[in-house]
């Protein structure tokens, strides 16, 4: 026990995160030096930037006169393909992620199952969508099938991981109470676990639909179908007004999804 009188009248400070003073300073100075060195390696060609500004300006100005009509049938087909790709991939991805998420939650699954499911998630998350799409386009050829498979695959990594984490942080006692009644494993999941993670599952699913739709616009750039292909063509032809129209439609759809997800999440909470 310290004598309280030795503490009275002395200032108090929060103990520093790094206890050794010299180490603290070395780390700080090192970080600053690294930042300065890193910035000095950036090589900017200002003449090129000046030329580019003009093209940038045209692109931005195109948003004031977006052209929906000239390539309306291309835009329509691309959009439809993107939407179908998004919905199909989200449904398939979510259905597959749920069992994987159960397997990847340490408080539910035995160790071998846990390790297998965690590796599936790790693989899915390590491979970026574009890389997967390039591979799948090489296998299945150009078109929305490759995009659909890519998005399904990416959805599994995303949703399983976040859902598994939600399952791991659930209230143990509620689940215990269901177990104590003599419930079977499936009943235990349905009554003890599912109600606790349902809002999160729904929220994540809608968020993933949102991401899948935006990704579907990118995947077209590597030939995996969807609106991205149309967008890419517009850029290649310097048709910024058509590109602007496509981007505006994407923005509107994403905002609509955002709004819907807010409404649904408020309802399921």
């Amino acid at each position, binding site marked *: 026990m310290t004598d309280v009188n030795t503490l009275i009248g002395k200032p108090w400070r929060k103990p520093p995160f790094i206890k050794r003073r010299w180490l603290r300073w070395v780390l700080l100075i090192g970080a600053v030096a690294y930042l300065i060195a890193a910035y000095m390696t950036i090589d900017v060609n200002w003449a090129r930037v000046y030329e580019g500004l003009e093209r940038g300006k045209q692109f931005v100005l195109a948003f004031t006169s977006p052209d929906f009509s000239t390539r309306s049938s291309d835009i329509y087909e691309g959009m439809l393909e993107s939407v179908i790709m998004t919905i199909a991939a989200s449904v398939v991805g979510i259905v597959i992620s749920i069992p994987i998420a159960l397997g990847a939650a340490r408080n539910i699954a035995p160790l071998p199952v846990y390790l297998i499911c965690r590796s599936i998630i790790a693989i899915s998350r390590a491979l970026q969508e574009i890389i997967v799409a390039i591979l799948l386009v090489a296998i299945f050829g150009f078109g929305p099938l490759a995009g659909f498979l890519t998005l399904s695959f990416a959805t599994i990594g995303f949703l399983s991981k976040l859902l598994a984490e939600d399952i791991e942080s659930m209230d143990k006692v509620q689940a*215990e109470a269901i177990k104590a*009644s*003599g419930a079977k494993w499936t009943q235990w999941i349905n009554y003890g676990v599912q109600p606790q993670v349902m809002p999160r599952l729904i929220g994540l699913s809608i968020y993933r639909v949102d991401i899948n739709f935006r990704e579907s616009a990118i995947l077209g750039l590597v030939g995996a179908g969807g609106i991205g292909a149309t967008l890419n063509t517009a850029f290649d032809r310097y048709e910024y007004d058509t590109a602007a129209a496509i981007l505006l439609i994407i923005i509107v759809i994403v905002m609509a999804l955002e709004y819907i997800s807010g409404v649904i999440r408020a309802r399921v909470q």
Partner: protein
Amino acid sequence: MLRLEKLVKTYKTGDQALKAVELEIPEGQVLALIGPSGAGKSTLIRCINRLVEPTSGKVYLGGVELTGLSSGNLRRERRRMGMIFQEYALVERLSVMENVLSGRLGYVGFWRSFLRRYPQSDIDEAFRLLDRVGLAHMADKRADELSGGQRQRVGICRALIQDPALLLVDEPTASLDPKTSRQIMRLICELCKERGLAAIINIHDVALAQMFVQRVIGLRFGAVEFDGPPEGLTPDVLTTIYGEEDWEATIEKVDEDDAEVAI
């Protein structure tokens, strides 16, 4: 009816929560398990229905030995042991009715429970129980809309609809105010008497335990230190269970409480 033989639980950390506990409870007896935090009260109760696996020892419920059962048989035996929890442990996002009916999960198949198509007899019994605890009008409310006392009543219904022979009750009043605590304790004890159930009630509040039960077990460091009627809890006994403290006030309070109950 329930018999524990040399029940030992050692946690992975090396903490010995239960040291060869021997206990026998006859049919229909309600007993209180008292003791300081960490004495192993919760562990003891959970070792009986194997929410916690005992390290060694035996548990007999009726004629059946529980510690060696396969998971299927254990589920069947768990139906005979209703459990009531400290923080109610209702599934918060399910309705009151779903929570009560979840006590029947051990009796109905998966699809019936998944589709919430319970047999009419279960639904009738659920309404009868909810009515008995005064909550029949709340059946379709979500569990998290209820107050603490109401939630615990739902918890009681969930345990009773299992049609158990034994109630395992873990700190039923720990998060309730003094008045609600008494009401809940009284309700549990009345229902046990009505249905002839045996019960083990973990409880912090010594005075409350003395008011309602016929037998008290005092647990200290995982061993039984006291086993007797509530009147046997003298200051000396409380000191052996809990450690040195002025116990006169607690015991006096008991007398007052008793007087009040008598009125």
